[in-house]
């Protein structure tokens, strides 16, 4: 029973331990670790910005990119409480702002829901095995007048969306719920 529970390499290690851990084993371990590290640093992080998004034309994110990769959720969460409790709408870490700038567009310039499979937020979160439910409530495309979309560039394809309802045939209508 016990034996079954233990992963194979542990079993090997246990067998080896009473005898000797040779210099050879040590070197092998070292090489293994080095290889792992090399693989990790060779793994490309980034490149999630969609060519069809406003972000592709913007020079920078709201904070340095490297910082955003690691800390965007802290920023958004902080912004959330500032907005909900303090009514502060002017700051640049608004979730609606992320959506406006990062949402991708199809050939006709229609925005594609940002949490759909392969879209900006989803692509990286799949890769990083992150699940979040923010888009159960929050609009995945800019819809309606952007009260807290202070970073919206006037040239954005969606900035002019003035109606409060989604137009018929809008891509986020009747879509199967993607992995959010």
């Amino acid at each position: 029973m016990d034996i079954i529970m233990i992963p194979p390499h542990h079993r090997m290690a246990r067998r080896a331990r009473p005898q000797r851990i040779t210099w050879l084993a040590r070197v092998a371990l070292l090489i293994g670790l080095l290889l792992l590290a090399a693989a990790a640093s060779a793994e490309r992080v980034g490149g999630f910005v969609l060519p069809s998004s406003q972000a592709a034309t913007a020079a920078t994110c709201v904070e340095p990119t490297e910082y955003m990769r690691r800390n965007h959720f802290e920023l958004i969460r902080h912004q959330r409480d500032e907005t909900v409790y303090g009514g502060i709408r002017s700051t640049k870490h608004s979730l609606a702002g992320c959506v406006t700038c990062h949402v991708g567009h199809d050939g006709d310039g229609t925005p594609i829901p940002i949490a759909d499979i392969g879209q900006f937020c989803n692509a990286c979160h799949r890769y990083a095995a992150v699940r979040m439910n923010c888009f159960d409530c929050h609009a995945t495309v800019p819809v309606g007048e952007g009260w807290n979309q202070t970073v919206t560039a006037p040239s954005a394809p969606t900035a002019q969306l003035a109606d409060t309802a989604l137009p018929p045939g809008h891509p986020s209508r009747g879509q199967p719920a993607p992995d959010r």
Partner: protein
Amino acid sequence: MNREAETTATDPHPDLTSPPSSAPAAAAVDQTRRALIGTAAGVTAAAVAPGLVLYSNANEAAPRTDPVSDVHRWGMLIDTDRCATGCTACVTACDRENGLNLQAKPLGDDQDKWQNQRATWIRKVRLQDNLTGRMTNLPLLCQHCENPPCVDVCPTGASFKRADGVVMVDRHTCIGCRYCMMACPYKARSFIHERVEQNLSRAPRGKGCVESCNLCAHRLDNGDISTACADACAHEGHHAIVFGDLKDPDGPLRQALAASPNRQIREDLRLNTGVRYAGI
């Protein structure tokens, strides 16, 4: 706390019975009352048009950069005599403003059940006095109590009162227990029962949370001192809703409150509501 003692602009308990350009802060109780009687009798000529709900506050005409404070307390006066039978302009405007019109009836639900269950922030209520037959219309919404029972009972603190008096739900901490719905004497809160497919950027909404009128907080926070319902009512020519700052003695709301007799619904509960009604 002594409610009658102070009437300064930052008074957390604005004495709504004092006249618009209120006397010095420490007016004695009976003086204030006398002033009220005088005002009620003679002020009509000085009162601003009751429909005048928009006033600009120059230094607030941009998205907020600093947290809301208790300098303002937002509220309303609803004149039921002006609330027209059959008119639902306020309800429709609220629905559109806050994305409530995007809710879809779940497949298989019958229409009556859906009408009962769909989230509404304003209900149009019709009252009949059984003795006299007199009919009264009024829009009933969150009364934005100073002492809100919904906040008292909330186990997570999701139901809260913002510093400027707006009672709302932080749906990031709401667990959907619905105690607040039970506690509210005005039946002002709704629960989202089903997954919501369409949302406005400014009005996120999702399954499992309670919500209610937030006095169009997104407007206020962007320096637009108005609500969709008051605007719509004025647009229809009824001017039954005056929105404004309860703490601004010279503002349109205080002027309107001082100009006509008005009361709180269920004032016996001593919740000190921010929404007041005339004509009931």
